[in-house]
C-alpha cells in the first residue's frame, strides 16, 4: 500500500560484548513513516539496537538495511539516520542555533539560518538561539536535541528514551507534541522507551523486547488484548496467569484443565492447544459476585476469599485468594452499581471466555499474577 523504499530492515542482528549477548538474532521491519516504539525493561538491549542502526556500534552478525541499501558497515556520518540521544548530548560549547545548525554545516548546506529558524519554530523555541544548553530547562534541551536531529530530514529518526529525564507532567505534554511533530514531518520515528504507557499512547506499532529479543510486535491494542508470552502479559499491564494443561480442541474452543477445574477459551485466542499452558485473564476482565450468587451465562469462574482491597479512584483493586493459594488481581470499576466487598468475604471471580487467552508455558512453571518490575536503574539512565 505505501512505498517500501524507505523501510528499515534489521535482519538477524546479533551484538555481543565479550561473552555477553546484548542483542540476540533480532529481526524487525519498520515501515517508512511509522511511529515505532521499542519497549523493554532497562538493560534489555534497546540502546544497543538503536546504536547499531545509527552506526555507533557494529553488529557482531546480521544486517541493517534501509530499503534495498545495506548500511551495516557505513560510518555514522554516512547514514541518513539521526539520533536524539538519551539525556540529549547537546554540545555545551555551542549555542542553540549552532547546535541545531551542526548537521547542516557539516554537509555544507546553504541557507542555514532560515532552516534553523523554521525548525526552532516547529519545536516552539523561537528566541532561544543565543542560549547555551546549560541555560535551558530539561524540556527545552529535549526540544533542541529533537530539532538538531530533525533539521537534517533523516530517513529514520532514532529517539533513545527522549523523555526519560523529564518530570511526569512535562513528559505527557512532550508525548503529545512528539506525536504532532511526527505527523507533520512524516519521518520514520523509532522511539525507545521503558514506559509502557508512553509506548502505547504514541506508537502505531510497538515491539516488546526482553533479554535481547523481540517478544511481540503489533499495534498497542493487539498486544494488550492478546499478549504472545507471559513476559509481555505482565510487562504490558498485568495479567492473572494460571498454570494448566491444554487438552486439545473441542468445537471452536481449546479445553484447559487447571486445579481440578475445566475451562474453555476460543481457539483464536490460544497460542497452544496441547501441553502445559497458562490460562490468562486481565484483572479488569474479572468480575466478583458473592459466593453462591449467579454467574452470568457462559461465564467461567473461580471461587476464593477477598484478602486485600485498595481503593484507587477509578476502580477498586482486590486480591482474591483461590483454594490453591494463588492471589488473583481483580479491578472492579467504581461505577457505583456494586457495593464494596469486605475483607474475608467469600466470592466468585468470573469472566467471559472470549476475554481469556492461552499462552505457552514451560513445564513446571507456576501461576504468575504480578507485573514485571520496571524500575529504570541508575546505570540504565545513562547507558
Amino acid at each position, binding site marked *: 500500500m505505501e512505498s517500501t523504499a524507505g523501510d528499515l530492515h534489521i535482519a538477524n542482528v546479533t551484538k555481543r560484548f565479550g561473552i555477553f549477548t546484548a542483542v540476540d538474532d533480532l529481526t524487525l521491519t519498520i515501515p517508512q513513516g511509522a511511529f515505532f516504539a521499542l519497549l523493554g525493561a532497562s538493560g534489555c538491549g534497546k540502546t544497543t539496537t538503536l546504536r547499531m542502526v545509527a552506526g555507533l556500534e557494529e553488529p557482531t552478525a546480521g544486517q541493517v538495511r534501509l530499503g534495498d541499501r545495506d548500511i551495516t558497515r557505513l560510518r555514522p556520518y554516512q547514514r541518513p539516520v539521526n539520533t536524539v540521544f538519551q539525556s540529549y548530548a547537546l554540545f555545551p560549547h555551542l549555542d542553540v542555533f549552532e547546535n541545531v545548525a551542526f548537521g547542516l554545516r557539516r554537509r555544507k548546506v546553504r541557507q542555514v539560518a532560515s532552516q534553523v529558524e523554521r525548525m526552532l519554530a516547529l519545536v516552539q523555541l523561537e528566541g532561544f538561539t543565543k542560549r547555551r544548553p546549560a541555560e535551558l530547562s530539561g524540556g527545552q534541551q529535549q526540544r533542541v536535541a529533537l530539532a538538531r536531529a530533525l533539521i537534517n530530514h533523516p530517513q529514520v529518526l532514532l529517539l533513545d528514551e527522549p523523555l526519560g529525564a523529564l518530570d511526569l507532567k512535562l513528559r505527557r505534554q512532550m508525548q503529545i507534541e512528539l506525536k504532532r511533530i511526527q505527523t507533520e514531518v512524516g519521518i520514520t520515528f523509532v522511539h525507545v522507551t521503558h514506559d509502557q504507557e508512553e509506548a502505547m499512547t504514541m506508537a502505531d506499532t510497538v515491539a516488546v523486547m526482553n533479554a535481547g529479543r523481540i517478544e511481540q510486535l503489533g499495534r498497542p491494542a493487539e498486544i494488550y488484548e492478546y499478549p504472545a508470552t507471559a513476559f509481555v502479559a505482565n510487562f504490558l499491564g498485568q495479567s492473572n496467569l494460571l498454570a494448566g494443561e491444554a487438552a486439545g480442541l473441542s468445537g471452536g474452543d481449546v479445553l484447559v484443565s487447571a486445579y481440578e477445574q475445566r475451562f474453555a477459551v476460543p481457539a483464536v485466542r490460544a497460542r497452544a492447544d496441547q501441553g502445559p499452558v497458562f490460562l490468562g485473564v486481565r484483572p479488569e476482565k474479572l468480575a466478583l459476585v458473592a459466593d453462591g450468587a449467579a454467574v452470568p451465562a457462559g461465564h467461567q469462574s473461580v471461587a476464593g476469599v477477598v484478602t486485600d482491597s485498595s481503593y484507587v479512584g477509578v476502580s477498586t483493586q482486590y486480591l482474591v485468594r483461590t483454594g490453591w493459594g494463588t492471589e488473583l488481581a481483580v479491578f472492579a470499576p467504581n461505577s457505583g452499581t456494586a457495593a464494596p466487598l469486605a475483607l474475608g468475604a467469600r466470592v466468585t471471580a468470573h469472566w467471559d471466555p472470549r476475554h481469556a487467552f492461552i499462552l505457552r508455558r514451560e513445564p513446571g512453571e507456576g501461576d504468575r499474577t504480578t507485573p514485571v518490575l520496571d524500575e529504570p536503574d541508575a546505570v540504565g539512565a*545513562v*547507558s
Partner: protein
Amino acid sequence: MTLMTGIGAAPAGSARPARKSGRRWLPYLLLLPGTLWLVVFFFGPMLTLGAASLWDPAGSLQTGYAQTLSFGNYVDAVRDAGPQLLRSFWYAAIATLIGVIIGYPLAYAIALKAGRWKYLLLVAVVAPMFTSFLVRTLAWKTILSDNGALVGLLRDIGILGADGRLLATPIAVVLGLTYNFLPFLVLPLYASLERLDRRLLEAAGDLYASPARSFVKITLPLSMPGLVAGTLLFFIPAVGDYINAELLGNPNTYMVGNVIDSAFLVRLDYPHGAALSFALMFLILIIVMVYLFRSGTDEVV
C-alpha cells in the same frame, strides 16, 4: 598533582572510551614522542646517576671517572652529610606537621564554609605560586629582618631576647618551608573535603554526634586520602629543598640539598654527590611507602 586537577569540573555522564579496534596502533603513536622524552630524560638520567654514584671517587671531571662499583661512596656520602640529611627530614617533618595544623582549617573553611567566596579563596591559596619562588622567599628576609616590625614586636613582648633574632635561625627555615609548600597540602585536602557528602554530617548530628565527634568519626576519615596526598606533596619537595636553608638560614641550618649542590657545582665531586642524591631518593621512597602502608591508603595515585 592529580589532586590539584581534581578540583575542576566533576566528570559528567558515563564515557564509553572503547574505540573501534581497527586503529590499535593509534594510541601508541600518540604516546610515542612524550614517552620517549620521559624515558630518555627521566629514566635515562636516573640510570646514569645510579652509575655515577658508583664511580671511582679518585677520578675528576678532567681525568674522567672510572666505573669501579665503589659502593663505599654511599657510606662516605651519608656519613659526611649525616647531620644535613637528618636535618632535612627533621625540618621537613616539623614543617609538614605545622602545615597540617594550619592547612586543615584553611581547607575545611574553603570547602565547607566559604559559600560563594570559594573560588576567590582558592585563588588566594595558590596566589603565592604566581610570583617567583625565590623572590617570595627573599621577602621573608625582609619580614624576619632584625630591624623589622615582627622581631621588634617579639622583643618587646619578651618572646625574643633583646638581641634575639629570627633570620638565620632554624625557625626561619621551617617557616619558609611551611610557607612555600603549604598550597600543595591545602589543595588536595580541599578537593577531598569538597567531595564530602554534607548530608553525612547532618546524619551524624541527627544521630546525636557532637560536632567534634562528627569531625573525628566522619570528616577526618573521609578526608584521609586528601590528607595523605597533601602531606606527601608537601613533604617530598620540602626534604629536597635547599633554597629556604640558603636564603633564610645559616650554614648550621644547611640541608642535604645544600651539600649535594656544593658536591656537584662547587667541589665537582660527582660520585659522592650522586650517591647522596640516590640515597636521598631511597630514603624518601622508603618513608613514603611506610607512610602509605601505615595510613592504609592506596587512593593517592
